[in-house]
């Protein structure tokens, strides 16, 4: 299969370019470009990275909840100066989000790309990959992203601003975000990889951050997208997914019941893509990577559309070639130790 026809290869190229832009972009587009571009980008691009071209929406949101809304609630003084910055941040996020919807996750996020690259290394090192997580485990993990958004992005910063909890929890998601460590390391900075001994709270948060970064490094070798599953940005995207122009649609056929290749291909283990009879199959956990469309063997059953324009439609010929290319890439999987013994 020619590489230019392979949607996953095209996506990797876009991800690489986005990574370079978001991690090193200010070198090319100016140090203050975040002020110009958005300052509220819908992916985990980090302001602690001294070379970033733009940074993530969760940073201003945490600051605004902590430094504006919290004190305003305490003082009982709500004014436009409190509401407008939050609305501006959300409006900036939504304007961008409408353009690409959840594809920001699957096509542009630096941390998502990093996990995929580690996964590819894992495949080449012949680690036995866990193709799909157990359904029960997936169900248990799913609420975590809402907790991350609700607690770490909204409630704790707000409580910190109101004086109920310490300053440590003023921007708790940034304190534990693995993308902060990744992007600053990629920009040549070691200053975000630390254990903070200034207080118990900071120490706990920095231990969580570093442990989670180590976990992601190893788990990504054998598991698909471990952090994406609990990412608050995924939850934030899920809230607004109906307004995005990129859509994932399905024309259900009875053959879907027996197939299930789409959900097997899904890196987020969304088994509902396979069982759903709905037209709109953009589920909260979806990152719009398009693998389900690529691995659907039936013509026109699944499609990724930009508004009404089809970008990628499932096709048996493409499926055959893509499947072959995937097998060639993966090579023969090494049987596990126990299977060998048996």
């Amino acid at each position, binding site marked *: 299969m020619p590489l230019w026809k392979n949607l996953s290869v095209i996506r990797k190229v876009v991800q690489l370019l986005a990574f370079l832009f978001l991690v090193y972009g200010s070198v090319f587009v100016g140090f203050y470009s975040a002020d110009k571009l958005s300052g509220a980008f819908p992916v985990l691009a980090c302001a602690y990275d001294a070379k970033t071209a733009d*940074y993530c929406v969760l940073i201003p949101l945490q600051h605004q909840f902590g430094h504006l809304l919290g004190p305003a609630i305490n003082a009982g003084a709500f004014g436009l100066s409190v509401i407008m910055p939050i609305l501006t941040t959300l409006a900036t996020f939504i304007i961008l989000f409408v353009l690409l919807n959840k594809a920001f996750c699957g096509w542009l996020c630096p941390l998502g790309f990093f996990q995929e690259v580690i996964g590819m290394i894992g495949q080449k090192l012949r680690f036995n990959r866990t193709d799909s997580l157990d359904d029960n485990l997936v169900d248990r993990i799913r609420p975590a992203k809402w907790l991350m958004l609700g607690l770490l992005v909204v409630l704790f910063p707000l409580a910190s601003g109101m004086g109920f909890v310490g*300053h440590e929890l003023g921007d708790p998601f940034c304190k534990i975000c693995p993308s902060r460590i990744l992007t600053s390391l990629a920009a040549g900075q070691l200053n975000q990889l*630390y254990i903070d001994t200034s207080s118990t709270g900071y120490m706990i948060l920095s231990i969580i951050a570093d*442990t989670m970064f180590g976990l992601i490094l190893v788990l990504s070798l054998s598991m698909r997208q471990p952090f994406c599953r609990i990412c608050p940005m995924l939850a934030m995207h899920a809230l607004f997914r109906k307004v995005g122009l990129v859509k994932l649609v399905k024309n259900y056929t009875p053959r879907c019941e027996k197939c299930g290749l789409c959900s097997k291909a899904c890196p987020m283990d969304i088994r509902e893509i396979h069982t759903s009879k709905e037209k709109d199959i953009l589920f909260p956990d979806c990152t719009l990577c398009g693998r389900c469309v690529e691995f659907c063997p039936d013509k026109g059953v699944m499609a990724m559309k930009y508004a009404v324009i089809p970008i990628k439609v499932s096709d048996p010929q493409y499926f055959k070639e893509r499947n072959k290319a995937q097998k060639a890439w993966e090579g023969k999987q090494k049987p*596990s130790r126990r299977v060998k013994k048996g």
Partner: protein
Amino acid sequence: MKIKVLAGVMLAVALFSFTAQAAMSWAPAPAKHGHGGHGGRHAAKTFMLHDGVGAELSLINPKLSVMPMQGEHGRVTVKSTGMDNYHALLATRSDGKLYESAVRYVYMFGKPSGESPSLLIKHAKAALEIKPAPLAREHWRYYSNTEAVFVVSYKGKPLANTTVLLKTANGSDAVLQTDVAGKLIVALPEDFSIIKSGRMGNRPSEFLLTANYAEGEQRFTTTFSSAYHINPEHWQSTELGLATVVAGMLLGGLITVRSRRRKEK
């Protein structure tokens, strides 16, 4: 409370003594009631102009609109302009032979200006200028034991091999020189005598850069002043961070092996 007042007085004394022998320059006025904290983002900020008798004062906003300012006994209060981002607090004075300027960049909160600080930095505020390259942005400050970069320019052109004096409120000084491209690298000294653990417990100090230049009979002097903070490396250990990442990797390995064995069973 008494400790806070004492620390404020000590900081004020340090700031005044440090500017006493320098050229016209800006420094923050001593706080009357501790620091403003985050709740006071939109509050006015007060600065002292040292040795600035007869100087013209102005504030340049991010869109380059110039607002004249009034000082009282060298004390200037900058109120919110309603516009977010850096503003330049400028003092200029000339007797026909000596042209003096003092620049300080002040971050003010308000509505997004839609302008990058590079516009304000690039804008000619005086013939001789020390321009930050770049100014701090989100999650970035001047820290001790780090290098800050500036460009010294005269009438908009970089000034090569020019001597610049560095003085800090903590008592350090150094004689620095620009390179052929007018670039000045300032190694901010590790000169805080009292270091508490954590960002919140430490007050920033001040550094001042002074450059002089002469063309014919005309002499030019400019100063740039800014706060700098204690480097967080005093309470943030990279070694421990690395060790924790390794521990996380081991934990990841353990989880992988356990889940695989469970699956094989």
